[in-house]
Every structure is written in structure tokens, then in C-alpha cells.
């Protein structure tokens, strides 16, 4: 399979944090999609500010449901049975974890096309306490039959992947990563369920999703300066995921590091380990992820530093792996 080379930003000249994400690419994307698709409706549980653009352009198709996430998922299911395409914008710890059963029973089992756009994922609300951490959401969402789980790496990936959600049967979780560094210079072309290879190298595979992609790309530059060449992937699709790419890259490098602002249980770390085991691929396997223990509370930048979710943290783990 040939793949169009994604146009990437120069990680050393661009700003560290993708400000476009903070200003809400997912909100702008949905407003633009609704201009041409009259079936799109949006629902929120007290997160309407994110949808200011949509509300202005399509007020009748904006449905505020108050602080009642579980209700919003089931209401969206009802709308979907009538031909509407509901996008629910919510804070991920509440919109996904609190609603896991409604998502499973009402959306996934019934194959209904409802889009769950999770804002403030991972440790993006780290200062507010562990109630506001969303670090098990991928594990829960990907365990559900018929779900699709997508984690864009930056604002350009959000624009591209949001558009890909318009025509697909079944529910989709779009995990917006607010703390991500910019990766793409323009919206990249994704193939459903396939990962983009962002860099080629023979020494270690770096696979990230969401903010993990920017960290992998930046770490790869640093590793190259130390003589270690990384094969870098954007694991934008966590369900279905790209097992072929995992097997292919690890067969070439013999060492793989996954990077994600998610628990080490059930996320990308698990996807890669399971895939290698099922395919009989022996490799050195490591992860940069959040430990399965009580997490610290603090501003996101401090927490990322603390848990090694930084380019330097990725470099250190990668060097440990290749020097084993």
C-alpha cells in the first residue's frame, strides 16, 4: 500500500503547544460540516461554549441537555433512529466514562451513528483533581463492540478526522487531545483504520496517539542526533487499529515504545503488546503512559513532566529500550 506523505511542521520552529486546538478545531469542523449536512445535530451537557460557531449558524440543531451526560447519550440515540447524525460534545471523564453503559447499550449494540467528541482528555484538567482525569476512556471505549475510536494528533488531524466521521455506520469516539504539539502542516489524508508513518528508522518504533504523536516526532529528532533512528507512527485509529503496521515496524526495529496520555492499562500500550503476542513477534516493548496507580494533581505541564510525557521523557525511555 502506498501512502501520501503527510506534510508536517518543523518541530523546532513551530510553537510547542498547538494553539488551534485550544481554540477549538473540533468546534469549527462541526459547524462547517453542518453547513452541507442538514442531518447533523449537536448535543452538549453544559459545554455549549465549544459550539459557539455551530450555534450561531445552526441554532435549531443545537440541543443543550444540561449537566446530564447519560441522558444526552440516550437522547442522541433516539435522534439517530430518526435519521439524524448527532455529535455530542462533552468533557471526556464524564461524557465517556460516566456514560459507558449508555454508549454500549444504546449506541454500540444498536449500531447507531452517534459521534462522541471528548474534550479535555487525559490530564488536560489535571489541576481540578482526579475526578477530572480521563485516562481510562480509550480502554473502556475500545472494549465495546461496534465502536470506532479515533485520537487526532493535532488540530489539522482533528479537521481531517472529524470529516471522516460523517459517513460511517456505528458510534465513534473522537478523543480530542488539548495538550498536543502541532504535527501536521495541513489536514493529513487518513485511510480508515490505518496509521500514518511519519518517519522511517531502523532502530526503534515510536507509536503515539493524540499528544503522544507530537512527543514521538520531537523525540525522534533528538534520538537522531544521538545516532538512534526512529520509525514513527500516528496511531490515530485505536479501534479498528492498524495491526499490520505494528507487526511491520516492529519486525524491522525489534523495539517499540508507545506514547499516550492514558493509563498503561487498555490503551495503545495494550494494543501493541496484544498484537505482537498474537502474531508471535518477539521484541523489546516499552510504554510512556500513566501508571496504574493514584495519579498526582497539578497543572497539565507539570503532570506531563512528572510522568515523562515530554520529548525528553520519550527519548530516555527509547534509549533504555535500544540499549537493553
Amino acid at each position, binding site marked *: 500500500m502506498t501512502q501520501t506523505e503527510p506534510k508536517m511542521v518543523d518541530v523546532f520552529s513551530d510553537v510547542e503547544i498547538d494553539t488551534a486546538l485550544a481554540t477549538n478545531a473540533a468546534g469549527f469542523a462541526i459547524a462547517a460540516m453542518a453547513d452541507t449536512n442538514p442531518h447533523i445535530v449537536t448535543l452538549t451537557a453544559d459545554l455549549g461554549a465549544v459550539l459557539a460557531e455551530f450555534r450561531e449558524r445552526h441554532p435549531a440543531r443545537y440541543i443543550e441537555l444540561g449537566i446530564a451526560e447519560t441522558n444526552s447519550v440516550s437522547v442522541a440515540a433516539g435522534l439517530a433512529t*430518526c435519521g439524524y447524525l448527532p455529535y455530542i460534545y462533552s468533557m471526556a471523564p464524564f461524557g465517556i466514562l460516566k456514560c459507558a453503559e449508555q454508549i454500549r447499550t444504546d449506541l454500540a449494540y444498536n449500531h447507531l451513528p452517534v459521534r462522541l467528541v471528548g474534550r479535555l482528555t487525559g490530564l488536560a484538567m489535571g489541576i481540578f483533581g482526579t475526578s477530572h482525569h480521563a485516562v481510562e476512556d480509550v480502554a473502556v471505549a475500545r472494549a465495546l463492540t461496534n465502536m470506532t475510536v479515533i485520537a487526532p494528533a493535532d488540530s489539522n488531524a482533528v479537521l481531517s478526522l472529524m470529516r471522516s466521521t460523517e459517513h460511517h455506520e456505528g458510534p465513534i469516539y473522537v478523543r480530542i487531545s488539548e495538550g498536543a504539539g502541532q504535527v501536521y502542516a495541513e489536514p493529513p489524508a487518513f485511510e480508515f483504520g490505518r496509521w500514518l508513518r511519519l518517519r522511517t528508522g531502523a532502530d526503534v518504533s515510536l507509536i503515539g496517539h493524540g499528544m503522544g504523536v507530537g512527543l514521538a516526532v520531537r523525540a525522534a529528532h533528538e534520538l537522531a542526533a544521538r545516532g538512534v533512528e526512529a520509525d514513527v507512527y500516528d496511531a490515530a485509529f485505536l479501534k479498528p487499529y492498524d495491526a499490520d503496521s505494528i507487526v511491520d515496524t516492529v519486525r524491522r526495529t525489534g523495539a517499540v515504545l508507545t506514547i499516550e496520555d492514558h493509563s498503561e492499562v487498555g490503551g495503545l500500550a495494550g494494543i501493541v503488546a496484544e498484537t505482537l503476542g498474537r502474531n508471535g513477534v518477539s521484541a523489546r516493548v516499552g510504554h510512556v503512559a500513566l501508571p496504574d496507580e493514584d495519579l498526582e494533581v497539578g497543572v497539565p505541564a507539570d503532570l506531563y513532566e512528572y510522568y515523562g510525557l515530554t520529548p525528553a521523557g520519550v527519548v530516555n525511555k527509547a534509549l533504555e529500550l535500544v540499549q537493553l
Partner: protein
Amino acid sequence: MLERGRPITSAELNRRADWIRLQTVDLIEQAGIGHYSSTFSCAEIIATLYYHVLRLRPDDPQWPDRDRFLLGKGHVATGLWPVLADLGYYPAEWLKQFGKIGSPLNDHPNMRLAPGIDFSSGSLGHNLSVATGIAYAGRLSNLDYRTFVLTGDGELQEGQVWEAAMAASHYRLGNLVAIVDANGFSGAGPTSDAMNIEPLATRFEAFGWRAVEIDGHDVDALTRTFDELPDPSSSQPTCVIARTRKGKGVAMMEESPQAWHLGLLSPRLRDRVVAEISGRMR
């Protein structure tokens, strides 16, 4: 097309409710286990809705203008399957597969498998929310269908029901009708002993609903209440609190409704129950 308000006599509706009870006995026997008394409490409600109230097109189950019916208390689907077969949604032979692997008719309804099911159910507390979404969609699409949900009274202990009740009145969904099969019992005992849900009418009214309280076995009261529903374009959802008896129509089940919440009649008791119900239908 089956129009709203199809003429039918009270005697026929009563007979139809007892026919639902008999069919339920058969289906449960096939499956080896099932919910007798919860189904019996809403037999008149199901009969009145499907043989008098709902606007349907069994030959086109996805017809956008159809009235919707959601079985919030999904554990009584055995009462619905024979009705949908009788109306022509699927062949009556399907009933013979009930309880077997691969059957489109399950103990709780699955919208992907059975024609005529507007939404799957089984997890209590969801369907009033789903119905709120369907009613909202009716507003967006300018369609005049009504959306009915049949809930149990124990189901009202689920918090999500009240999130939905709040949203439905907030959005002025006069095209939404909740029917509470208030039989007074949940699986483990009297509903309000476990957690008091009364006064139901006052509670729904406080949430902005129009509440009507009737005898849920009186087919004339049911018919009148549904005939007098406000126009779907009106601005207040309606809650019909149907006071019922769990196990209605079978003396031993009325006496011990809990014992027959979930179970299987022995052949001897089955014959007795069938004789009691059939005797009334002659």
C-alpha cells in the same frame, strides 16, 4: 395503514389482553424462563395501544410518520411478540423460535433483529431518554407522530428517567407520552418499600408534565385517556400513570406477584392458568 383510533369494542380489547397472557404463557414455556406477572400487569395497555391507539404501517416498519412505541420495561417483550406477529410485522412462525439461539425475538427486544421494535431495551431507565430524542426529532422534522414509552414503576428509581423528564418538558414535547405500569412491585418486593416513588402524579407534574392517573386494566379508561391526548403539536408531555396489579388475570399470581416475577410454570400449574384465562375468554 393502521390509523389512530381504530374502532374496537371493550370486550374485544379485554379478550385481546387475555390472548396476550395466553401467548406469554406459551412463549415462556418455550424459553424455559420468563416474566409472567410483569407482563400480565400491562396486557390491557399493550392491547389498547396496538389495537386502537397507534398509527402504524406493519408493512413498512421504518415509515417516518409512524407513532413510536418503546418498551422501557423490556422484560415484558413476551407480551409484545405475539401482537407484532398478529399485526403482520413478521410471520407467526417466528414465535416458535423464541428462546432459541439465532431467534430475532429475544426476552428483551432488539431493534436490529425484530421489525416493529423502535428501540432496544433491557437496561432500565434508558428508554424515556431515547423517546425524548425521538420526540425531539419529530419536532425538527415537522412530523406529527407521537412517541409512547411504557415504563415500569421500579424503573422510575433510575435517575436517568428524571433527567429525561426534565428535558422533555424543557423542550415542550407534547408529542411524548410516558405510560407507567404502576403495578407496585419490583423484582425484589413492593417498589416503594425499596425506594419510595410516590406520589407519582405530583412528581411528574413538578417536572412540568401533564399527569393522568387511571385504572390500567380498565380498557375504557385507557381508550378514553389516549383518545383525549393533547395534539402532538402541544407543549406539555403527558404521563399516564396506569395503576395495575402485578400478575393481573391469574388469581395465584395476583396473590403472590413476586413469586411469578421470573419463573416457569410447572405443566400442572400451566394447565390451571390456561384454563383460568381461557375460561374468561369464552
